[in-house]
């Protein structure tokens, strides 16, 4: 009779413990937060000294034709095809830049290093990269700097001293503001919502949730957070968890926030299959391809991410400015063509700007 007793006790145990009151929303970390202003004004930044590297003996090519090679994590996927497109747009606009993309066919750091190494030997004026590994890529980038080649990162950084500048596609507080603003636009300032995340301890998601709470507390104090559920990076589990939230809260649930590119489409799927489109809003971080079906159906209005075309575009503009001497250590902003003035943060990072909101009007223009 051991088993029934033990199992029954196990089941009762589940219900007897009491959920602890938490200061922060579940799934948020305990790090300091820095919410943006409600009206979107740039946050006051404490100036950080420049912490990037410097090329040795780079020739002065100010205003002259330059050759840039772009080495993304891998080629052949929609995301990096979009960054390449942005780079070509910038090159065409500038007229004195020749940029080509070449990279490994798999996101493999060893292959990526080999590609960069080859271009250093061939000779180029600048290298753009999206690192497969921030530490492992650093030595080859330092070699490039030593040979007088400019080095600029985007999407995924290396150790700061191994490159001059990095284009940061989104900050935690920027994403957080876009998420909360988007959900409020659908459910109202006093609406209620739940969050589907990967795990409570996944670093990026925990940062975003902490910043979302700080921003909501400051700008929409009546907004009601119901709970956060974990769904790993598992699409069926995400779907099940979203279903459970819908079943548990009924009409009290007005919105779902998906924190991963897996959780967001799965939440949209749960809402769709429950026939609750228009009643339960879904907003989240996800890629356009995964969300296009739901956005085109009208079940999802906004998907939050950055625009990789703009990211590539900015990378080439920043490189041009760097070569022309228009961007130097200590600067607080840089001009980037149609994107206007971009802010410099964290010593040697160029912030792309506010996140991009994919909607029914633009989501079909992207393929990644």
């Amino acid at each position, binding site marked *: *009779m*051991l*088993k*029934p007793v*033990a*199992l*029954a006790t*196990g*089941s*009762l145990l*589940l*219900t007897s*413990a009491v*959920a602890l009151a938490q200061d922060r929303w*579940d799934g948020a970390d305990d790090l300091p937060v820095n919410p943006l202003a409600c009206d979107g004004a740039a946050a006051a930044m404490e100036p950080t000294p420049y912490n990037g590297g410097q090329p040795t003996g780079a020739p002065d090519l100010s205003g002259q034709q330059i050759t840039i090679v772009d080495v993304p994590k*891998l080629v*052949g*996927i929609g995301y990096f095809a979009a960054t390449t497109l942005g780079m070509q747009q910038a090159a065409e606009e500038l007229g004195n830049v020749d940029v080509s993309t070449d990279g490994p066919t*798999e996101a493999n750091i060893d292959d990526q290093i080999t590609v960069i190494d080859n271009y250093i030997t061939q000779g180029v004026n600048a290298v753009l990269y999206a690192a497969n590994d921030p530490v492992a890529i650093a030595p080859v980038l330092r070699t490039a700097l030593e040979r007088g080649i400019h080095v600029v990162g985007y999407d995924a950084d290396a150790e700061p001293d191994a490159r001059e500048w990095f284009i940061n596609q989104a900050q935690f507080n920027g994403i957080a503001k876009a998420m909360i603003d988007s959900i409020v636009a659908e459910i109202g300032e006093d609406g209620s919502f739940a969050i589907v995340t990967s795990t*409570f301890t996944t670093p990026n998601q925990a940062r975003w949730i902490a910043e979302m709470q700080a921003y909501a507390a400051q700008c929409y104090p009546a907004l009601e957070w119901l*709970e956060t*559920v*974990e769904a*790993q*990076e*598992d*699409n*069926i*589990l995400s*779907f*099940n*968890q979203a*279903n*459970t*939230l819908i*079943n*548990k809260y*009924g009409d009290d649930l007005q919105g779902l926030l998906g924190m991963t590119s*897996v959780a967001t*489409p*799965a939440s949209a*799927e749960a809402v*769709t*299959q*429950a026939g609750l489109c228009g009643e339960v809003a879904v907003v989240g971080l996800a890629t356009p*391809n*995964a969300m*296009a*079906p739901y956005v085109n159906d009208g079940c999802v209005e906004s998907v939050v991410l950055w625009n990789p075309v703009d990211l590539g575009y900015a990378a080439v503009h920043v490189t041009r400015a760097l070569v022309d001497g228009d961007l130097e250590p200590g600067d607080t902003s840089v001009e980037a063509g149609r994107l206007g003035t971009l802010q410099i943060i964290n010593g040697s990072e160029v912030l792309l700007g506010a996140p991009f909101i994919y909607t029914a009007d633009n989501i079909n223009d992207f393929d990644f």
Partner: protein
Amino acid sequence: MTAVTETAGGGILPGLRRLVATQEAVLLLALVVLVIVVGTINPRFVSERNVQSVLLGNAYIAVAAIGMSMVIVSGNIDISVGSLIGVLATLSGSLAVSGVPIILCWLIPLVVGAMVTGFMGLLVAYLRIPAIVVSLGMLSILKGGLISITGGDWITDLPEGYHLAQMRPFDIPMPIYFMVFLTIGAAIWMRYSVTGRSIYAVGGNAEAARLSGISRERTIVKVFVIHGVFVGIASVLFATQLSIIQSTVPPNLELTIITASVVGGVSILGGVGTVIGSTFAAVLLAAIGSALIFVNLSPYWLRAVQGILILVTVLADILRRRRMSRRR
């Protein structure tokens, strides 16, 4: 412990005692207790909608656990099952997108699944390589192959009519029918068919099975082939549940499936267990996951509870075996 149990159950109501002593009854009891307790705290837990969600939640796990239970009863294991589901789901989706008739997109994964696991069965049966080693190798091959071929891309734009798992005959989700009917069918087959019974014989005592004229080799290959068919069905349910196929598999999917089998009372030592138990266990795990949300408990409890269930079940299995050998 044995003495206490004997006294408690012996004599008074032996029939009832035997019933309660089966793992299936224990799981059913746990499920009933859970439903009553959580349903009292929050009546929405037992709403028709949530009951459907719970039954649907692990239906594909339960289907995969049927095959897994057979493999474990035969004294083997397959830890590549999670990766195989990923590969077969991707295969099914890719076929559908490229315009292959939908019925074939549903059936081809069953055939390919049976071929892959059948190959493992051959290695296990005739070359006598332990199943854990064979399936570990297969896991690496499948996982690596999947990532290289798809590059992690998702399959979208699936054709109309492909989403089997989203169909709702009589307003009940299709995966629930698969779970119920496949479980009943497999349970009857394992109990009454010659091959079904020989699986228990091979897993329980291979030497005795050989002496009674059962071919260990052929039985093991058959078990693996049948397992592959169930994996194929599970992969189609997995692939068609959402409108998008993620070409990666849920983390630790194989562990979840093996957990369902083991908690369902399938002895990891072979020879004992039923697929009814593994299906009950899969449903119980889904119900616990849902209940944690309904009573506002951290989902970390789910893992802890899973662990406790496994340990308790295995412990009970060992005690039961010890008692049986003492009787002899």
